């Protein structure tokens, strides 16, 4: 009967958001069918479009990978936006300062982004572990600081000649652009990077002893410490790693999407990734499809605006409805199980 229950909830989990979305379409008087059709056209209609969808998929994947690390350690890494930005800043620094062949520059940018993100993540971790500042608060603060840093760089030291605009820096030299196949905007390199990192992270968490201890720390710090784990160190580790991975998202944003540094370089993907991971129920393997779906919705949202003249934030609303309803359903499911008599305690 549990199985039947599961199926029921799975069904609801799909049905409810879909119906809700349809209602929204009707509310903004858009033809639901055409909109649905455009969803597929817009996201996968042509190789070009698929490429663009992947372009959104990449930062989402990287950010989600970062988040499952901190979630595994039981931490709310709201600071991820800042970590993405920090990575982008570090990469931009390399792109601006070093003249060299593409492979060299790109490698340097990736390493720099990794480090930049780690620094920012590490800060949040330190605040939590040493400073006793709740990671949500600390992360938030660091996000604002990171934005401040970018704006300062763009308005000050890195500003365009004679210009003081938060619009962005000069575009990087072409050597600092991620290579693309012609006709496509998305860089295969960044896609490979994202998938590779996700696999690596999942491997780390599920297969290595460090990952295991990290998860133990997240699930029950006290018991974990009884197993001889230095829980503080592992909390910090989780923030460092997450920061680094998030930093990579910053690198791809700067070097493969904007080709320059802009204040909103993180594109809010860090925050969106939190929703993705919540929806995936912290299970890594689900992140690939869900992130792809979210990317597709974002693309579709653009097509809806372009072709149906709908408001650009329609996609966001639909994503929100989806996650919210699934979350509530899961909660309802949990307590409806709890009502059942607890299985026999003790043993004879």
């Amino acid at each position, binding site marked *: 009967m549990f199985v039947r229950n599961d199926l029921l909830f799975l069904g609801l989990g799909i049905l409810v958001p879909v119906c809700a979305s349809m209602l929204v379409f009707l509310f903004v008087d858009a033809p639901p069918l055409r909109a649905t059709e455009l969803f597929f056209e817009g996201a996968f209609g042509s190789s070009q479009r698929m490429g663009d969808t992947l372009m959104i998929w990449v930062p989402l994947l990287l950010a989600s990978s970062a988040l499952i690390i901190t979630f595994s350690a039981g931490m*709310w890494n709201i600071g991820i936006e800042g970590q993405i930005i920090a990575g982008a800043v570090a990469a931009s620094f390399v792109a601006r300062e070093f003249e060299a062949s593409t492979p060299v520059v790109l490698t340097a940018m990736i390493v720099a982004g990794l480090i930049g993100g780690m620094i920012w993540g590490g800060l949040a971790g330190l605040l939590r572990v040493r400073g006793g500042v709740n990671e949500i608060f600390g992360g938030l603060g660091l996000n604002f600081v990171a934005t401040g840093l970018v704006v300062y760089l763009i308005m000050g030291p890195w500003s365009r000649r004679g210009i003081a605009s938060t619009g962005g820096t000069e575009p990087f030299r072409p050597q600092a652009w991620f290579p693309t196949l012609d006709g496509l905007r998305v860089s295969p390199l960044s896609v490979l990077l994202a998938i590779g990192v996700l696999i690596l992270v999942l491997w780390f968490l599920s297969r290595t002893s460090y990952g295991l201890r990290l998860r133990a720390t997240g699930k029950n710090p006290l018991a974990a410490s009884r197993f001889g784990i230095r829980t503080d160190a592992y909390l910090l580790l989780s923030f460092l790693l997450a920061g680094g991975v998030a930093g990579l998202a910053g690198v791809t944003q700067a070097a493969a999407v904007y080709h320059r540094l802009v204040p909103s370089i993180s594109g809010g993907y860090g925050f969106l990734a939190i929703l993705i991971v919540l929806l995936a129920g912290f299970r890594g393997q689900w992140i690939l499809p869900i992130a792809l779906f979210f990317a597709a919705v974002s693309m579709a949202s653009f097509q809806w605006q372009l072709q149906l003249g709908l408001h650009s934030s329609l996609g966001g609303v639909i994503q929100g409805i989806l996650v919210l309803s699934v*979350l509530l359903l899961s909660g309802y499911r949990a307590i409806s199980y709890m009502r059942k008599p607890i299985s026999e305690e003790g043993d004879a």
Partner: protein
Amino acid sequence: MEAATVAIIIASSTPLVFAALGETLTEKSGVVNLSLDGSMLLSAMTGFASAYLSGSVEIGLCVAMFTSATVASVVAFAGIKLRLNQIAVGLVLTYFATKASALFGGDFVRKPGPSIQKMSIPGLEEIPFVGEAVFQQNPLVYLSIVLGFVLFVFMFKTRRGLDLHAIGDRPEAAFSRGINVNLQRYVYTILGGALVGLGGAAFSLDAKMGWSDGHIANYGWIALAIVIFGGWHPLRAMFGCYLFGLIQVSALELQPVLPDLAQVLPIAPFPLMIVALVFINLRVVHSVTDRLGSIGSLIRGRAPSGLGESFWPD
């Protein structure tokens, strides 16, 4: 600093004050409503829209309060009844409400609409400096200030305030004393939400005079931060809001002096708040504040022990 500038700081901080006070109330009861950034936007939109359509500011205020009270009740329901992680729910609602405000606010962007009129307080407004700084504002501003003190009195001087602390600090003990913990948590979460909505309306019907997409983004997060910084104390939270306004304004004054930093200074409050917290958490400082008695506890500020955890009697 001229009285006029002080007046601006007070006026422009008012929405924050409402939001911070509301969240303080909610969190005192042990519930974290993390959806502020979204629900403020949404209520700012609905508030303005309804005022615009009805031509009545009062209706606008009510609708705004109703809006974020509704969002808050979702947090409460999910956190208390469904026992979901309040933070998760809050974050999702933030995102949803933000996008929804933009989507459904489309028709009202930059429409000139009704707004709250200034109302100087006869007599008081003549007081040099203070008069211009404080008593030549609009009713909402006065309300926010009064509210701060009312909440202070409520929390620290009344029986119900005592119960509020009780359910936030040690729900099981409160329950054993016959207090209906979860019912009260619902009430305070929804009340707090309503205040947050008032904050949103204070933006769209006064401070910003109108609606446009995301024009008050981030203020919700700032309010949340100020709650922590304010150590869950209404007056300290209020102080935090004004401090924030002050720093924002001084940033402008500084632009001619250090043009590069002028853009950045507005975010200065954040690092400052963090540093302040870290400092307060230092063992050394603890040992001092512990001795200072009530003032010490005001400085220390403590999160309600039961914050963010759902309670159910077995």
